[in-house]
C-alpha cells in the first residue's frame, strides 16, 4: 500500500513538471521526515554521489565527444566510410550506420552520435533521393548505438547504481552493438534493393579513398585507444575518458586544426549543462533510493517478483513491456534511475545476470529514445533535419522492431552479451 502511494506521489510530481532530480530528491526528503529518519541523509546523499571517481567519467566522455563534434569529425568519418561503401545499393545508408557505429565507439551519448553523423548524412542521403522518412528514422536509430557500443554514459550510471564493473558492462555492450549494426545495414541494403527511389552515388577513386581515410584516421585510432586501453586494464574508464579528451583536443586543435576557441567554448558549455543535469538526477535518485530502502520497498518488490516469477523470461517480458510504456513519457536515464534500484535486489534470486540485465536495460532505453511522443533522439533529428515529428516517427518503427529483435536474441543466446566480459 505504501509502495503504491509513494509511486503515485512520484509520478504526480513528475507529471506536474517538477524537474526529475528535484522530484526524486524532494520526495526522498519528505519520506525521511515522515518516517522519522534523519534528514541529514539528504545532503549526505547528494555529497557522496558526486564525490565519486567513476562518475567523473561522465563529464570527460561528454567533453571528448562534444569537442570532436564541434571539430567536425563527423564529416571526416562519414566521408571516409562513404568513399568505401557509398556506391553500393543503399550505400549511403550503410555508410551512415557504420559512421554511427564508429562514432559510438568514441562517444558515450546517443544524442551526440545522432547529431554528429546526422548533420552530414541527412542532407547527403536526401540529395541522392533516399526516402525522407527512412533517412530520418535511420539516423534516430543509428544514433542510439552511441549508448550501446562503449563508452556509454547510461552504463556508467548503471554500474554506479548496482556497483557492477563498468568495464564488464562496456565489454558486454559490444556484441549486441555489432549485431544491431549488422541488422541495420542488412535492412538498409534490402530496402534499397526493393525500392526504386534510390539514386546511387558514384564510386570514389582510390585517391579519394586514401585522402578521406587519412583524415579520419586519428579519430579511428582514438576509438581504438579508448576501447583497448580499458579492455587490457591500461586505464580505468575515467582515465580512458580523460585520455580521450586530451586526444580529442590534440586531434581537432593541432592535427585537423578545425577547433576554434569559439567552438571549444561551445563544447565546454554544452558538456557542463549535460553533466550537471545528469549527475543531479543521479544524486536525487540516490536520496530517493536511500529513503525507499528504509521503507523496505525494494525488498518488498524483490520478494513479490521472486514469488510471482519462477522463470526469468516472464520477468524480463514484463519489465520490457513496462519500459516500453514508461519510455513513451519518461526521459531515458531517469527511467533507469527510478527502476534499477528497485529491481536490482530481485535479479540474482531469479537467476538473471546483473551485467546482462544492464545491457538489456540499455537496449530498452535505446527504444525509449526513439519512441514518440517523448524521445530525445527524435527531437535531435527533428532539429538537425528541420523535419516534422511525424516524419521522423514514421521512419523509425522498422528499426525499433530490429532493436526488440536484438533483445530477443540476447535473451535466447546470453553469450552474445556475456561472452566478451566473462569468457574471452
Amino acid at each position, binding site marked *: 500500500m505504501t509502495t503504491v502511494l509513494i509511486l503515485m506521489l512520484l509520478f504526480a*510530481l*513528475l*507529471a*506536474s*513538471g*517538477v*524537474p*526529475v*532530480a*528535484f*522530484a526524486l*530528491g*524532494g520526495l526522498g*526528503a519528505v519520506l525521511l521526515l515522515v518516517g522519522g529518519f534523519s*534528514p*541529514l541523509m*539528504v*545532503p*549526505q546523499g*547528494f*555529497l557522496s554521489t*558526486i*564525490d*565519486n*571517481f567513476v*562518475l*567523473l567519467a561522465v*563529464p*570527460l566522455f561528454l*567533453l571528448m565527444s562534444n569537442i570532436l563534434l564541434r571539430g567536425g569529425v563527423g564529416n571526416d568519418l562519414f566521408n571516409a566510410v562513404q568513399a568505401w561503401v557509398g556506391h553500393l545499393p543503399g550505400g549511403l545508408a550503410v555508410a551512415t550506420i557504420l559512421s554511427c557505429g564508429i562514432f559510438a565507439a568514441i562517444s558515450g551519448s546517443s544524442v551526440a552520435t545522432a547529431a554528429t553523423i546526422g548533420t552530414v548524412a541527412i542532407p547527403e542521403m536526401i540529395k541522392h533521393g533516399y526516402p525522407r522518412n527512412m533517412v530520418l528514422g535511420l539516423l534516430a536509430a543509428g544514433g542510439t548505438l552511441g549508448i550501446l557500443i562503449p563508452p556509454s554514459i547510461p552504463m556508467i550510471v548503471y554500474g554506479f547504481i548496482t556497483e557492477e564493473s563498468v568495464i564488464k558492462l562496456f565489454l558486454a555492450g559490444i556484441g549486441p552493438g555489432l549485431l544491431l549494426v549488422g541488422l541495420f545495414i542488412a535492412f538498409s541494403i534490402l530496402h534499397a534493393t526493393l525500392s526504386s527511389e534510390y539514386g546511387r552515388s558514384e564510386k570514389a577513386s582510390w585517391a579519394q579513398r586514401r585522402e578521406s581515410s587519412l583524415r579520419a584516421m586519428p579519430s579511428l585510432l582514438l576509438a581504438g585507444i579508448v576501447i583497448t586501453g580499458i579492455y587490457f586494464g*591500461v*586505464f580505468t574508464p*575515467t*582515465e580512458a*575518458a*580523460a*585520455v580521450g*579528451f*586530451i586526444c580529442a583536443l590534440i586531434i581537432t586543435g593541432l592535427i585537423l586544426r578545425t577547433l576554434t576557441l569559439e567552438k571549444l567554448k561551445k563544447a*565546454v*558549455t554544452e*558538456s*557542463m*549543462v549535460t*553533466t*550537471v*543535469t545528469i*549527475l*543531479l*538526477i543521479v544524486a536525487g535518485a540516490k536520496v530517493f533510493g536511500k529513503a525507499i530502502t528504509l521503507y523496505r520497498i525494494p525488498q518488498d518488490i524483490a520478494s513479490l517478483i521472486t514469488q510471482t516469477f519462477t522463470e526469468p523470461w516472464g520477468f524480463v517480458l514484463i519489465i520490457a513491456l513496462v519500459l516500453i510504456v514508461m519510455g513513451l*513519457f*519518461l*526521459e531515458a*536515464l*531517469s527511467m533507469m534511475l527510478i527502476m534499477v534500484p528497485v529491481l536490482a535486489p530481485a535479479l540474482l534470486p531469479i537467476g538473471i545476470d546483473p551485467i546482462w540485465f544492464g545491457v538489456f536495460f540499455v537496449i530498452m532505453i535505446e527504444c525509449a529514445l526513439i519512441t514518440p*511522443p*517523448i524521445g530525445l533522439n527524435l527531437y535531435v533529428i527533428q532539429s538537425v533535419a528541420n523535419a516534422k515529428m511525424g516524419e521522423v516517427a514514421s521512419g523509425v518503427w522498422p528499426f525499433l522492431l530490429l532493436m526488440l529483435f536484438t533483445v530477443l536474441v540476447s535473451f535466447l543466446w546470453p553469450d552474445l552479451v556475456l561472452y566478451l566480459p566473462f569468457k574471452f
Partner: protein
Amino acid sequence: MNRFCQSIDWLSEVLGHLAAWFYFLTGVIIGYEVIARYLFNAPTIWAQEIAQLLLLWATFIAISRALKRDQHIRITALEAFLSEVAKKWLKLFSLLFIASLCVLAVVYGGSIFWDSFERGRSTGTMLNIPNWWTEVVIPLGFSILLLQALAEIFKLMFDTERSAPE
C-alpha cells in the same frame, strides 16, 4: 526586486561558466596523471583527489544556471494540454517545491559543514584535505539555487522580462 533578479541571474551565469572550465580542468588533471604514470613512471598523489573536489564544486555551483535556463530534465509532455494559467500555477508549485528542498539541504548540509569546520576534521587521505572543503558545496550550491528559485518565482508572478545575458 528587479535588481535582485538581475544580480542572481548574473551570478548563476558566471558560476555556470566557471563550472564548465572546472570540468575541463578535471580532464587535464586526470589526463596528466595517466601520462605521468606511464610516460614518466611518476604517478601523482594529488590528481584524483583534486579532480574529485573540482567535480563536486563544478556540479553544485552550476545547478542554478540550469534552473534559470529551464535546462533541468523534466516531463513536458502534459504541458501541451494545459492553459497558460494552469501552466503558471504548476510552475509556481514546482519552484516552491525546489525552494523547500533547498532550505532543507542548506540547513542540514550547513550543519554537516559547520561540524567538520569547527572540529577541524580532515579526510585522512594522501592530501589530507579538510572535510569542509567538500562539504561546504552543499549549503553553498543550494543557497544559490534557493535565491535563483526565488528570483524565478518573482519573474513568474510579476512577468518581468527574462534577462538572459549570454
